[in-house]
């Protein structure tokens, strides 16, 4: 009997299995490198150490948000509240810092506030059947509203009670010219840790695998006896807490914040995730792709400005570049599928 089965089941072709899902992410790597090379060839500043340094330092927050956004998107959900959570945690954080609460405690409180919004989103989704898009849209409005009720001032850290230690740049290579310095700060380190955490979480924990399963088919995941509900809570809690973390890194970096910070960041994060090869309907994708997506997204703006694109055209060009990107990805994938 078993022999009969054996002879008809052929081993699948080698190499096929791994590549197909990786292709969009690999495409992101290639295109990112191409963009850097193009920038360098035309404008000569894109491989300066200073440029690379500030690419990471200025976008540590976006990398964190992209990782945060990857989780809900992998399940076919979305978290639209991340930008607003950055705003509310930043406003509360700075208020507290100005009231003399020690910086470390302020950070803990910021993370807790993030957690509260994550929990609220999770509850609305799991207990009241709201779709993630709507639930997090509501928490987005709520967070932004509360932030502006608390304060619409531009808040700055007091002199001796701030998050400077996160922002202070550590120079690895200190050239006489700042544009040739290679530096990083704790914010970048935090982003790096978040990325590693995201990778381990998604690929080496059962909760992470459940996230992929939910993205494949929620009802299947439920019937397979996976802890779907708990996982959903975990996802929205994690993404909200990571948004609060992004807020800490961002406010530390610029030393000030206000209620309007983070408008539209959720869409930047979604764009990063998608550019990185994660499918918006869930099930496929990688954290590392999202990180690359964030870098690609970040480099679009300087490119348009260097190309001297007329003001009215900038958003069109940015849109077109993302479009070219996803179309290319699609083409690469189509070729991969044919093979």
């Amino acid at each position, binding site marked *: 009997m*078993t022999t009969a*089965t054996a002879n008809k089941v052929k081993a*699948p072709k080698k190499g096929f299995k791994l590549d197909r899902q990786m292709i969009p992410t690999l495409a992101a790597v290639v295109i990112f490198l191409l963009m850097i090379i193009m920038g360098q060839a035309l404008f000569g500043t894109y491989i300066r150490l200073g440029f690379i340094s500030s690419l990471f330092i200025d976008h540590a927050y976006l990398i964190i948000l992209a990782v945060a956004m990857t989780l809900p998107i992998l399940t076919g959900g979305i978290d639209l509240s991340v930008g607003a959570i950055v705003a509310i945690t930043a406003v509360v954080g700075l208020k507290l810092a100005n009231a003399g609460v020690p910086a470390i405690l302020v950070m803990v409180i910021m993370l807790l506030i993030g957690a509260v919004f994550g929990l609220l989103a999770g509850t609305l989704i799991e207990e009241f059947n709201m779709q993630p898009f709507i639930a997090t849209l509501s928490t987005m409005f709520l967070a932004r509203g509360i932030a502006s009720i608390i304060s619409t001032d531009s808040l700055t850290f007091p002199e001796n009670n701030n998050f400077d230690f996160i922002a202070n740049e550590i120079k690895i290579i200190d050239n006489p010219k700042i544009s040739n310095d290679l530096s990083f700060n704790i914010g970048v380190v935090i982003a790096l840790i978040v990325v590693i955490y995201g990778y381990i979480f998604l690929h080496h924990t059962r909760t992470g695998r459940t996230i*992929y399963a939910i993205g494949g*088919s929620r009802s299947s995941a439920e*019937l*397979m006896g996976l*802890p779907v509900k708990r996982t959903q809570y975990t996802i929205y809690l994690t993404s909200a807490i990571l948004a609060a973390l992004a807020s800490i890194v961002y406010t530390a970096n610029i030393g000030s914040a206000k209620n309007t910070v983070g408008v539209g960041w959720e869409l930047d994060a979604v764009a990063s995730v998608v550019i990185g090869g994660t499918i918006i309907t869930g099930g496929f994708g990688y954290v590392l792709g999202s990180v690359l997506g964030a870098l690609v997204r970040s480099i679009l703006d300087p490119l348009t400005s260097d190309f001297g694109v007329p003001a009215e055209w900038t958003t069109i060009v940015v849109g077109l570049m993302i479009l070219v990107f996803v179309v290319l990805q699609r083409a690469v994938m189509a070729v991969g599928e044919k093979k």
Partner: protein
Amino acid sequence: MTDKTPIVVMKGITIEFPGVKALDGVDLTLYPGEVHALMGENGAGKSTMIKALTGVYKINSGSITVEGKPQSFNGTLDAQNAGIATVYQEVNLCTNLSVGENVMLGHEKRGPFGIDWKKTHEAAKTYLAQMGLENIDPHTPLSSISIAMQQLVAIARAMVINAKVLILDEPTSSLDANEVQDLFKIMRKVRDSGVAILFVSHFLDQIYEITDRLTILRNGKFIKEVMTKDTPRDELIGMMIGKSAAELSQIGAKKSRREIKSGEKPLAEVKGLGKKGTINPVDLDIYKGEVVGFAGLLGSGRTELGRLLFGADKPDSGTYEFNGKQVNISDPYTALKNKIAYSTENRRDEGIIGDLTVRQNILIALQATRGMFNPIPKKEADAIVDKYMEELNVRPRDPDRPIKNLSGGNQQKVLIGRWLATHPELLILDEPTRGIDIGAKAEIQQVVLDLAAKGMGVVFISSELEEVVRLSDDIEVLKDRHKIAEIENDDTVSQATIVETIANTNVNGKEA
């Protein structure tokens, strides 16, 4: 027997859905070390009973005790934790993940750094091997294996949990004889280790082969619990359908072969039709009024060939003549326009449109051929829906229910009705009797014969060689994605002939 203490006792289980009482005071008792079958027609409530036990549905009244403890599970996770492993009727796996991941989901082997993938895949391999899938690399994407193999993967997954109760809802409906034997071997092993197995199947042979005890349901009501060996078939059938077995329509003898007149043009004449990687070029003639059976083992390419004939996949070689005309069947729409219809084996993903009503599901293909802006007049639509629900005995006879709320077998009947409504000249049926109860199976087989008698060309794909042999005029035998033989089905041909052909012919058509 009775000295054993039962492991699961369900008493007076009642479940109501809006408008239907799916279960009405049903009892079920499972004993360790026994295979217990739930018997009943399509829609009798078997799957619902299983879902009540595992907490998918909430019960309206009744009690469930597992190992003496009253339980009300809040979902399959709880049931699993209590030692109940379940394979549901529709394959419920994640097509975005690999085979190995699906087997081990939630039970991945862990090392110091979280999941240890090497160990996990090794474990997956052993479980797959148990199901006769030793040659499938656990890294293979689930989406690339056939629905039948997915069924085996789902069973392998159930093995991972060291269960005290194993529930298998129609696990054999898409397997061929070999796989069924493999599965039974495992079931016996598991049973002998003291596990209680709950089994659902519409194949009486299988029931008598593997089960110890039966619980019979009819229309959501508990009829009787009996020991298998004490219950003759007739009596069992009688209890299931509520009338005597003799009244059941039976298709006895093998169909006599339709003679092809010399010079007669085939309805469909296919030359060198193939698609790289799925099926090698095939020549095929199908005449009006002829039933052509496709036989072969799991993954031999029967489905793929059927899909090419329907244009569900685009062929990359070959010519296709239909009704004497050269046609280019590039998509299902063109196929339907040319009066070719195809009923899929993958009911859930490619068949039913779950949230639409039964009525809409029956009408939709006909509507699509008429075009969006040419709606079927209400009267005509009502007549069509009535006709096919009646003819195929769809239960409940309520056309306005979402099709996803029908039992598996009834969904299948609705789908067949959908294709008949388009009045095809060539009807390709891929596993049409899968999950259909014994009564309805005979009815569907009769429908096939009637259609052929009226001049329709029928392609009949089934894993049950018995029905292929009984219904077909010609049998195309496939192996490893090649057509290896074409057998004219006369009285000398039997199941054994085909099995021999498969075993003894290699893909070049030569004797092995």
